[in-house]
Protein backbone atom coordinates (compact mmCIF):
# COMPACT_ATOMS: atom_id res chain seq x y z
CA UNK A 1 0.00 0.00 0.00
CA UNK A 2 1.04 3.54 -0.63
CA UNK A 3 1.12 5.96 2.19
CA UNK A 4 1.01 9.52 0.97
CA UNK A 5 3.47 11.78 2.70
CA UNK A 6 1.44 13.89 5.09
CA UNK A 7 2.64 17.28 3.95
CA UNK A 8 5.15 19.00 1.77
CA UNK A 9 8.63 18.17 2.84
CA UNK A 10 10.71 20.09 0.35
CA UNK A 11 13.74 21.04 2.40
CA UNK A 12 15.73 24.26 2.53
CA UNK A 13 19.09 23.74 0.91
CA UNK A 14 22.50 24.46 2.38
CA UNK A 15 24.98 25.02 -0.41
CA UNK A 16 28.71 24.90 0.24
CA UNK A 17 30.71 27.39 -1.80
CA UNK A 18 34.35 26.94 -2.78
CA UNK A 19 36.18 29.93 -4.23
CA UNK A 20 38.95 28.67 -6.48
CA UNK A 21 41.93 30.33 -8.06
CA UNK A 22 44.21 28.40 -10.40
CA UNK A 23 42.68 25.14 -9.28
CA UNK A 24 43.05 25.74 -5.54
CA UNK A 25 40.43 26.67 -2.97
CA UNK A 26 41.31 30.08 -1.63
CA UNK A 27 38.32 30.72 0.54
CA UNK A 28 35.71 28.43 1.88
CA UNK A 29 35.30 25.71 4.36
CA UNK A 30 38.43 23.99 5.54
CA UNK A 31 38.77 20.69 7.33
CA UNK A 32 41.75 20.40 9.60
CA UNK A 33 42.15 16.69 9.05
CA UNK A 34 42.27 16.89 5.29
CA UNK A 35 45.79 16.31 4.06
CA UNK A 36 45.33 18.85 1.29
CA UNK A 37 42.84 21.44 2.48
CA UNK A 38 43.15 23.46 -0.71
CA UNK A 39 42.05 20.69 -3.05
CA UNK A 40 38.57 21.42 -4.42
CA UNK A 41 37.84 17.75 -5.21
CA UNK A 42 38.63 16.63 -1.67
CA UNK A 43 36.71 19.51 -0.11
CA UNK A 44 33.64 19.11 -2.31
CA UNK A 45 33.32 15.43 -1.61
CA UNK A 46 33.84 16.02 2.10
CA UNK A 47 31.07 18.64 2.15
CA UNK A 48 28.70 16.32 0.33
CA UNK A 49 29.41 13.54 2.82
CA UNK A 50 28.81 15.88 5.71
CA UNK A 51 25.43 16.98 4.46
CA UNK A 52 25.84 19.88 2.05
CA UNK A 53 22.92 19.70 -0.39
CA UNK A 54 24.88 21.15 -3.27
CA UNK A 55 28.33 22.37 -4.11
CA UNK A 56 29.18 25.62 -5.87
CA UNK A 57 32.65 26.14 -7.28
CA UNK A 58 33.31 29.78 -8.01
CA UNK A 59 36.32 30.39 -10.19
CA UNK A 60 38.04 33.67 -9.48
CA UNK A 61 40.92 33.05 -11.87
CA UNK A 62 41.43 35.92 -14.25
CA UNK A 63 43.89 34.41 -16.71
CA UNK A 64 43.43 32.28 -19.83
CA UNK A 65 45.79 29.61 -18.53
CA UNK A 66 43.61 29.44 -15.47
CA UNK A 67 40.54 28.65 -17.56
CA UNK A 68 42.07 25.40 -18.77
CA UNK A 69 42.95 24.56 -15.18
CA UNK A 70 39.32 25.20 -14.27
CA UNK A 71 38.00 22.51 -16.61
CA UNK A 72 40.46 20.06 -15.15
CA UNK A 73 39.39 21.09 -11.64
CA UNK A 74 35.71 20.70 -12.51
CA UNK A 75 36.36 17.26 -13.94
CA UNK A 76 38.29 16.10 -10.89
CA UNK A 77 35.72 17.57 -8.52
CA UNK A 78 32.74 16.08 -10.36
CA UNK A 79 34.24 12.60 -10.56
CA UNK A 80 33.05 11.40 -7.18
CA UNK A 81 30.41 14.00 -6.42
CA UNK A 82 26.81 12.81 -6.49
CA UNK A 83 24.97 15.95 -5.44
CA UNK A 84 24.17 18.92 -7.70
CA UNK A 85 27.32 20.74 -8.73
CA UNK A 86 27.34 24.35 -9.95
CA UNK A 87 30.27 26.12 -11.55
CA UNK A 88 30.46 29.89 -11.86
CA UNK A 89 32.95 32.61 -12.66
CA UNK A 90 34.08 33.71 -16.08
CA UNK A 91 31.35 31.96 -18.08
CA UNK A 92 30.79 34.42 -20.90
CA UNK A 93 29.40 32.34 -23.77
CA UNK A 94 27.23 29.29 -24.35
CA UNK A 95 30.44 27.58 -25.45
CA UNK A 96 32.09 28.29 -22.08
CA UNK A 97 29.03 26.80 -20.40
CA UNK A 98 29.05 23.72 -22.64
CA UNK A 99 32.70 23.03 -21.77
CA UNK A 100 31.92 23.24 -18.05
CA UNK A 101 28.90 20.90 -18.44
CA UNK A 102 31.05 18.47 -20.40
CA UNK A 103 33.54 18.49 -17.55
CA UNK A 104 30.77 17.42 -15.17
CA UNK A 105 28.91 20.49 -13.87
CA UNK A 106 25.13 20.22 -13.50
CA UNK A 107 24.47 23.95 -13.45
CA UNK A 108 26.37 27.08 -14.36
CA UNK A 109 26.11 30.43 -12.69
CA UNK A 110 26.29 33.50 -14.92
CA UNK A 111 26.57 37.06 -13.68
CA UNK A 112 27.99 40.03 -15.57
CA UNK A 113 27.98 38.20 -18.91
CA UNK A 114 24.22 37.74 -18.61
CA UNK A 115 23.79 41.44 -17.82
CA UNK A 116 25.78 42.35 -20.91
CA UNK A 117 24.05 39.76 -23.06
CA UNK A 118 20.74 38.56 -21.56
CA UNK A 119 20.25 36.15 -24.48
CA UNK A 120 23.03 34.07 -22.94
CA UNK A 121 20.49 32.79 -20.38
CA UNK A 122 18.17 31.36 -23.03
CA UNK A 123 20.97 30.07 -25.17
CA UNK A 124 22.38 27.97 -22.33
CA UNK A 125 18.88 26.97 -21.20
CA UNK A 126 17.84 25.81 -24.66
CA UNK A 127 20.67 23.31 -24.82
CA UNK A 128 20.91 22.21 -21.20
CA UNK A 129 17.53 23.05 -19.67
CA UNK A 130 16.44 26.00 -17.57
CA UNK A 131 17.31 24.11 -14.38
CA UNK A 132 20.96 24.30 -15.41
CA UNK A 133 21.15 28.11 -15.47
CA UNK A 134 21.62 30.12 -12.29
CA UNK A 135 21.68 33.88 -12.67
CA UNK A 136 23.87 35.43 -9.98
CA UNK A 137 22.97 38.95 -8.91
CA UNK A 138 25.23 41.14 -6.78
CA UNK A 139 22.91 43.61 -5.12
CA UNK A 140 23.16 46.72 -2.96
CA UNK A 141 20.35 48.59 -1.26
CA UNK A 142 19.80 52.14 -2.49
CA UNK A 143 20.35 53.85 0.83
CA UNK A 144 18.94 57.21 -0.21
CA UNK A 145 15.83 55.93 -1.97
CA UNK A 146 12.47 56.04 -0.21
CA UNK A 147 12.39 52.24 -0.54
CA UNK A 148 16.04 51.13 -0.26
CA UNK A 149 15.19 47.45 -0.71
CA UNK A 150 12.65 47.80 -3.50
CA UNK A 151 15.06 50.10 -5.33
CA UNK A 152 18.16 47.97 -4.74
CA UNK A 153 20.61 48.10 -7.66
CA UNK A 154 22.58 45.45 -9.47
CA UNK A 155 26.35 45.87 -9.07
CA UNK A 156 29.32 44.39 -10.90
CA UNK A 157 33.08 44.35 -10.34
CA UNK A 158 32.86 42.88 -6.87
CA UNK A 159 30.23 45.36 -5.78
CA UNK A 160 32.12 48.47 -6.87
CA UNK A 161 30.27 49.35 -10.05
CA UNK A 162 26.60 50.37 -10.03
CA UNK A 163 24.87 49.23 -13.22
CA UNK A 164 21.89 51.42 -12.40
CA UNK A 165 19.61 48.44 -12.92
CA UNK A 166 16.89 47.45 -10.50
CA UNK A 167 17.47 44.12 -8.75
CA UNK A 168 13.76 43.27 -8.76
CA UNK A 169 13.42 43.99 -12.48
CA UNK A 170 16.56 42.11 -13.41
CA UNK A 171 15.51 39.08 -11.35
CA UNK A 172 12.13 39.04 -13.10
CA UNK A 173 13.71 39.53 -16.50
CA UNK A 174 16.18 36.71 -15.82
CA UNK A 175 13.25 34.47 -14.87
CA UNK A 176 11.35 35.34 -18.03
CA UNK A 177 14.48 34.67 -20.10
CA UNK A 178 14.60 31.17 -18.67
CA UNK A 179 16.81 31.27 -15.57
CA UNK A 180 16.27 28.26 -13.32
CA UNK A 181 17.37 29.90 -10.07
CA UNK A 182 18.62 33.23 -8.73
CA UNK A 183 21.76 33.44 -6.61
CA UNK A 184 21.36 36.71 -4.74
CA UNK A 185 24.41 38.15 -3.00
CA UNK A 186 23.92 41.16 -0.80
CA UNK A 187 27.07 43.22 -1.26
CA UNK A 188 26.04 45.23 1.82
CA UNK A 189 26.14 42.11 3.98
CA UNK A 190 28.89 40.16 2.27
CA UNK A 191 31.83 39.70 4.58
CA UNK A 192 30.12 41.32 7.59
CA UNK A 193 29.11 38.05 9.31
CA UNK A 194 26.20 40.09 10.65
CA UNK A 195 23.50 38.11 8.87
CA UNK A 196 21.92 37.85 5.43
CA UNK A 197 19.93 40.76 4.04
CA UNK A 198 16.58 39.12 4.79
CA UNK A 199 14.43 42.00 3.58
CA UNK A 200 16.16 42.09 0.22
CA UNK A 201 16.06 38.31 -0.11
CA UNK A 202 12.35 38.21 0.75
CA UNK A 203 11.61 40.94 -1.78
CA UNK A 204 13.38 39.08 -4.59
CA UNK A 205 11.97 35.71 -3.55
CA UNK A 206 8.44 37.15 -3.67
CA UNK A 207 9.07 38.81 -7.03
CA UNK A 208 9.89 35.56 -8.85
CA UNK A 209 8.55 31.98 -8.99
CA UNK A 210 12.00 30.37 -9.31
CA UNK A 211 14.12 29.46 -6.27
CA UNK A 212 16.30 32.14 -4.69
CA UNK A 213 19.63 31.26 -3.10
CA UNK A 214 20.70 33.77 -0.45
CA UNK A 215 24.33 34.70 -0.08
CA UNK A 216 26.38 37.16 1.92
CA UNK A 217 26.59 37.81 5.63
CA UNK A 218 26.33 34.41 7.28
CA UNK A 219 28.02 34.40 10.66
CA UNK A 220 26.01 32.04 12.84
CA UNK A 221 23.21 29.49 12.77
CA UNK A 222 20.51 32.05 13.62
CA UNK A 223 21.28 33.88 10.40
CA UNK A 224 20.31 30.82 8.37
CA UNK A 225 17.12 30.38 10.40
CA UNK A 226 16.27 34.04 9.67
CA UNK A 227 16.94 33.91 5.96
CA UNK A 228 14.85 30.73 5.59
CA UNK A 229 12.12 32.33 7.71
CA UNK A 230 11.54 36.03 7.12
CA UNK A 231 14.00 36.00 4.20
CA UNK A 232 11.89 33.44 2.29
CA UNK A 233 15.08 31.96 0.83
CA UNK A 234 14.88 28.56 -0.82
CA UNK A 235 18.56 27.90 -0.28
CA UNK A 236 21.51 29.57 1.38
CA UNK A 237 25.12 29.65 0.40
CA UNK A 238 27.57 28.93 3.17
CA UNK A 239 31.28 29.38 3.22
CA UNK A 240 32.81 31.06 6.23
CA UNK A 241 30.05 29.98 8.64
CA UNK A 242 31.99 26.81 9.21
CA UNK A 243 34.77 28.81 10.78
CA UNK A 244 32.53 29.86 13.64
CA UNK A 245 32.31 26.77 15.74
CA UNK A 246 30.09 24.85 13.31
CA UNK A 247 32.06 21.93 12.06
CA UNK A 248 29.86 20.67 9.25
CA UNK A 249 26.69 21.11 7.25
CA UNK A 250 25.24 18.32 9.35
CA UNK A 251 25.65 20.19 12.62
CA UNK A 252 24.31 23.36 11.02
CA UNK A 253 21.27 21.40 9.88
CA UNK A 254 20.80 19.73 13.24
CA UNK A 255 20.61 23.18 14.81
CA UNK A 256 18.26 24.45 12.09
CA UNK A 257 15.84 21.64 12.90
CA UNK A 258 15.61 23.17 16.39
CA UNK A 259 14.37 26.33 14.69
CA UNK A 260 11.74 24.34 12.80
CA UNK A 261 13.47 24.69 9.43
CA UNK A 262 12.97 21.60 7.22
CA UNK A 263 16.36 20.29 6.15
CA UNK A 264 17.75 17.02 4.84
CA UNK A 265 19.94 15.07 7.21
CA UNK A 266 22.20 12.77 5.23
CA UNK A 267 21.93 9.08 6.01
Amino acid at each position, binding site marked *: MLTAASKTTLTRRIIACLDCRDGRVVKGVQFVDLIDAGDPAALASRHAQEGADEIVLLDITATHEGRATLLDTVQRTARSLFVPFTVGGGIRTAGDAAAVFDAGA*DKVSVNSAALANPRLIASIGNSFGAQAVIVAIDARRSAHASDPVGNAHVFTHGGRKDTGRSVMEWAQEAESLGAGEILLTSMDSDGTRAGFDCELTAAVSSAVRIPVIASGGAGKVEHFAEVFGSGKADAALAASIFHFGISSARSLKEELIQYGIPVRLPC
Partner: protein
Amino acid sequence: MNEEKDSSRAIPVTVIDYKAGNLTSVVKALRHLGAEVTVTDVPEALATAERIVLPGVGHFAATRRLDETGLTRAILSAISIGVPFLGICVGMQWLLTGSTEAPDQPGLGYFQGKCDRFPEDSRNAENEKVPHVGWNRIVPRSDPPTRLFHGVDDNEFVYFTHSYRVPTTLHVRDETGSLENPTAAITNYIQPFAAAVEHENVFGVQFHPEKSGTTGLKILNNFLEFKTC
Protein backbone atom coordinates in the same frame (compact mmCIF):
# COMPACT_ATOMS: atom_id res chain seq x y z
CA MET B 1 31.26 8.25 -28.15
CA ASN B 2 33.09 7.86 -24.90
CA GLU B 3 34.22 4.28 -24.43
CA GLU B 4 35.75 4.52 -20.96
CA LYS B 5 34.96 1.32 -19.05
CA ASP B 6 35.14 -0.10 -15.59
CA SER B 7 35.64 -3.83 -15.78
CA SER B 8 35.29 -4.57 -12.03
CA ARG B 9 31.65 -5.52 -12.47
CA ALA B 10 30.90 -4.63 -16.04
CA ILE B 11 27.12 -4.59 -16.18
CA PRO B 12 26.42 -3.36 -19.70
CA VAL B 13 24.10 -0.35 -19.80
CA THR B 14 23.03 1.59 -22.85
CA VAL B 15 22.29 5.26 -22.21
CA ILE B 16 20.17 6.96 -24.85
CA ASP B 17 21.30 10.36 -26.07
CA TYR B 18 18.41 12.27 -27.65
CA LYS B 19 19.99 15.70 -27.25
CA ALA B 20 17.93 16.62 -24.21
CA GLY B 21 20.38 18.03 -21.71
CA ASN B 22 23.50 16.76 -20.16
CA LEU B 23 24.31 13.04 -19.90
CA THR B 24 27.61 13.42 -18.08
CA SER B 25 26.25 12.99 -14.55
CA VAL B 26 24.13 9.93 -15.32
CA VAL B 27 26.97 8.21 -17.16
CA LYS B 28 29.40 9.07 -14.38
CA ALA B 29 27.15 7.65 -11.65
CA LEU B 30 26.52 4.41 -13.58
CA ARG B 31 30.26 3.96 -14.19
CA HIS B 32 30.93 4.66 -10.52
CA LEU B 33 28.66 1.69 -9.75
CA GLY B 34 30.64 -0.51 -12.10
CA ALA B 35 28.46 -0.36 -15.18
CA GLU B 36 29.96 -0.60 -18.62
CA VAL B 37 28.22 2.35 -20.25
CA THR B 38 27.60 2.82 -23.94
CA VAL B 39 26.01 6.07 -25.07
CA THR B 40 24.00 5.87 -28.26
CA ASP B 41 21.67 7.94 -30.41
CA VAL B 42 20.77 5.23 -32.94
CA PRO B 43 18.02 2.57 -32.67
CA GLU B 44 20.24 -0.25 -34.01
CA ALA B 45 22.31 -0.14 -30.83
CA LEU B 46 19.26 -1.07 -28.75
CA ALA B 47 18.83 -4.43 -30.46
CA THR B 48 21.63 -5.86 -28.33
CA ALA B 49 21.19 -3.63 -25.27
CA GLU B 50 21.07 -5.51 -21.98
CA ARG B 51 19.83 -2.58 -19.91
CA ILE B 52 18.56 0.82 -21.08
CA VAL B 53 18.58 4.20 -19.36
CA LEU B 54 16.67 7.12 -20.83
CA PRO B 55 17.70 10.34 -19.09
CA GLY B 56 16.26 13.73 -19.87
CA VAL B 57 15.88 17.18 -18.53
CA GLY B 58 14.03 19.97 -20.17
CA HIS B 59 10.91 20.01 -22.29
CA PHE B 60 8.62 17.07 -23.04
CA ALA B 61 8.66 18.14 -26.70
CA ALA B 62 12.30 17.01 -26.88
CA THR B 63 11.05 13.41 -26.85
CA ARG B 64 9.81 13.97 -30.41
CA ARG B 65 13.34 13.13 -31.47
CA LEU B 66 12.84 9.60 -30.12
CA ASP B 67 10.01 9.11 -32.62
CA GLU B 68 11.87 10.75 -35.49
CA THR B 69 15.00 8.65 -35.05
CA GLY B 70 13.21 5.33 -34.63
CA LEU B 71 14.39 5.06 -31.02
CA THR B 72 10.79 4.84 -29.77
CA ARG B 73 10.14 1.65 -31.71
CA ALA B 74 13.51 0.19 -30.68
CA ILE B 75 12.81 0.95 -26.99
CA LEU B 76 9.36 -0.60 -27.22
CA SER B 77 10.74 -3.75 -28.73
CA ALA B 78 13.52 -3.99 -26.12
CA ILE B 79 10.97 -3.54 -23.33
CA SER B 80 8.74 -6.23 -24.83
CA ILE B 81 11.51 -8.83 -24.65
CA GLY B 82 12.20 -7.99 -21.00
CA VAL B 83 15.19 -5.64 -21.20
CA PRO B 84 15.28 -3.60 -17.97
CA PHE B 85 14.48 0.04 -18.73
CA LEU B 86 14.89 3.10 -16.50
CA GLY B 87 13.53 6.53 -17.45
CA ILE B 88 14.78 9.51 -15.49
CA CYS B 89 12.84 12.80 -15.14
CA VAL B 90 11.40 13.53 -18.61
CA GLY B 91 12.48 9.96 -19.43
CA MET B 92 9.95 8.75 -16.84
CA GLN B 93 7.25 11.15 -17.98
CA TRP B 94 7.64 9.86 -21.52
CA LEU B 95 6.42 6.41 -20.36
CA LEU B 96 2.94 7.95 -20.00
CA THR B 97 0.47 8.71 -22.76
CA GLY B 98 1.57 12.35 -22.85
CA SER B 99 2.03 15.62 -21.03
CA THR B 100 0.18 18.92 -21.06
CA GLU B 101 3.63 20.48 -21.58
CA ALA B 102 3.53 19.38 -25.24
CA PRO B 103 -0.04 18.27 -26.02
CA ASP B 104 0.80 17.34 -29.62
CA GLN B 105 3.64 15.02 -28.66
CA PRO B 106 2.52 11.56 -27.56
CA GLY B 107 4.48 9.62 -24.96
CA LEU B 108 5.21 5.91 -25.19
CA GLY B 109 1.86 5.10 -23.58
CA TYR B 110 3.28 2.23 -21.56
CA PHE B 111 1.40 3.65 -18.57
CA GLN B 112 -2.06 5.12 -18.95
CA GLY B 113 -2.07 8.67 -17.63
CA LYS B 114 -0.86 12.16 -18.43
CA CYS B 115 1.63 14.56 -16.84
CA ASP B 116 0.46 18.00 -15.89
CA ARG B 117 1.97 21.11 -14.39
CA PHE B 118 2.04 21.75 -10.65
CA PRO B 119 -0.85 24.10 -9.87
CA GLU B 120 -0.12 27.75 -9.23
CA ASP B 121 -3.75 28.59 -8.49
CA SER B 122 -5.89 28.08 -5.39
CA ARG B 123 -4.97 24.39 -5.25
CA ASN B 124 -1.48 25.61 -4.33
CA ALA B 125 -2.61 26.83 -0.94
CA GLU B 126 0.85 27.45 0.50
CA ASN B 127 1.82 29.33 -2.64
CA GLU B 128 4.79 27.05 -3.16
CA LYS B 129 7.11 27.76 -6.03
CA VAL B 130 6.98 26.07 -9.40
CA PRO B 131 9.42 24.53 -10.42
CA HIS B 132 9.86 22.05 -7.59
CA VAL B 133 13.60 22.25 -6.97
CA GLY B 134 15.51 20.60 -4.18
CA TRP B 135 15.62 17.62 -1.86
CA ASN B 136 12.28 16.13 -0.96
CA ARG B 137 11.13 12.95 0.75
CA ILE B 138 10.09 9.82 -1.06
CA VAL B 139 7.73 7.26 0.43
CA PRO B 140 8.31 3.97 -1.38
CA ARG B 141 5.44 1.51 -1.74
CA SER B 142 5.69 -1.22 0.86
CA ASP B 143 3.11 -3.74 -0.34
CA PRO B 144 4.13 -5.29 -2.61
CA PRO B 145 7.66 -4.01 -1.98
CA THR B 146 9.37 -2.28 -4.86
CA ARG B 147 12.61 -3.57 -6.33
CA LEU B 148 13.91 -0.11 -7.14
CA PHE B 149 13.76 1.03 -3.51
CA HIS B 150 15.14 -2.12 -1.92
CA GLY B 151 17.16 -1.01 1.12
CA VAL B 152 15.86 2.57 0.89
CA ASP B 153 14.04 3.68 4.02
CA ASP B 154 10.78 5.53 4.13
CA ASN B 155 11.40 9.23 3.99
CA GLU B 156 14.88 9.27 2.53
CA PHE B 157 15.59 12.38 0.47
CA VAL B 158 16.24 12.69 -3.24
CA TYR B 159 16.89 15.65 -5.53
CA PHE B 160 14.13 16.92 -7.82
CA THR B 161 13.98 19.64 -10.44
CA HIS B 162 10.77 19.76 -12.50
CA SER B 163 7.56 21.70 -13.18
CA TYR B 164 5.47 18.83 -14.57
CA ARG B 165 4.49 15.79 -12.51
CA VAL B 166 3.24 12.26 -12.94
CA PRO B 167 -0.12 11.55 -11.28
CA THR B 168 -0.47 8.80 -8.66
CA THR B 169 -3.49 7.42 -10.53
CA LEU B 170 -1.60 5.75 -13.38
CA HIS B 171 -2.53 2.31 -14.52
CA VAL B 172 -1.16 -0.47 -16.61
CA ARG B 173 -2.77 -3.77 -17.67
CA ASP B 174 -1.03 -6.82 -16.23
CA GLU B 175 -0.77 -10.22 -17.96
CA THR B 176 -4.22 -11.29 -16.72
CA GLY B 177 -5.78 -8.14 -18.14
CA SER B 178 -6.57 -6.49 -14.84
CA LEU B 179 -5.50 -2.95 -14.07
CA GLU B 180 -2.55 -2.26 -11.84
CA ASN B 181 -1.19 0.99 -10.43
CA PRO B 182 2.56 1.11 -11.11
CA THR B 183 3.29 3.94 -8.64
CA ALA B 184 6.38 2.84 -6.70
CA ALA B 185 6.99 5.93 -4.57
CA ILE B 186 5.09 9.08 -3.71
CA THR B 187 6.38 12.56 -2.92
CA ASN B 188 4.27 15.40 -1.70
CA TYR B 189 4.72 18.83 -3.18
CA ILE B 190 1.60 20.97 -3.27
CA GLN B 191 -0.16 17.63 -3.83
CA PRO B 192 1.08 14.02 -3.86
CA PHE B 193 2.64 12.92 -7.16
CA ALA B 194 4.36 9.77 -8.39
CA ALA B 195 8.09 10.06 -7.66
CA ALA B 196 8.72 6.64 -9.19
CA VAL B 197 6.96 3.93 -11.18
CA GLU B 198 7.77 0.30 -11.76
CA HIS B 199 6.07 -2.50 -13.59
CA GLU B 200 7.81 -5.70 -14.58
CA ASN B 201 11.04 -4.58 -16.30
CA VAL B 202 10.03 -0.93 -16.71
CA PHE B 203 11.12 1.67 -14.15
CA GLY B 204 10.90 5.43 -13.97
CA VAL B 205 12.04 8.06 -11.48
CA GLN B 206 11.04 11.71 -11.48
CA PHE B 207 14.01 12.70 -9.32
CA HIS B 208 17.69 12.55 -10.28
CA PRO B 209 19.26 9.47 -8.66
CA GLU B 210 22.63 10.51 -10.09
CA LYS B 211 22.42 13.69 -7.99
CA SER B 212 20.79 12.24 -4.87
CA GLY B 213 23.83 11.20 -2.85
CA THR B 214 24.05 7.69 -1.40
CA THR B 215 20.27 7.22 -1.59
CA GLY B 216 20.33 7.87 -5.32
CA LEU B 217 23.27 5.53 -5.88
CA LYS B 218 21.43 2.77 -3.99
CA ILE B 219 18.44 3.19 -6.31
CA LEU B 220 20.61 3.12 -9.44
CA ASN B 221 22.39 0.08 -8.10
CA ASN B 222 19.06 -1.68 -7.56
CA PHE B 223 18.28 -1.04 -11.21
CA LEU B 224 21.65 -2.46 -12.25
CA GLU B 225 21.04 -5.57 -10.14
CA PHE B 226 17.47 -6.14 -11.29
CA LYS B 227 17.04 -9.37 -13.20
CA THR B 228 14.11 -10.21 -15.42
CA CYS B 229 12.58 -13.48 -14.20
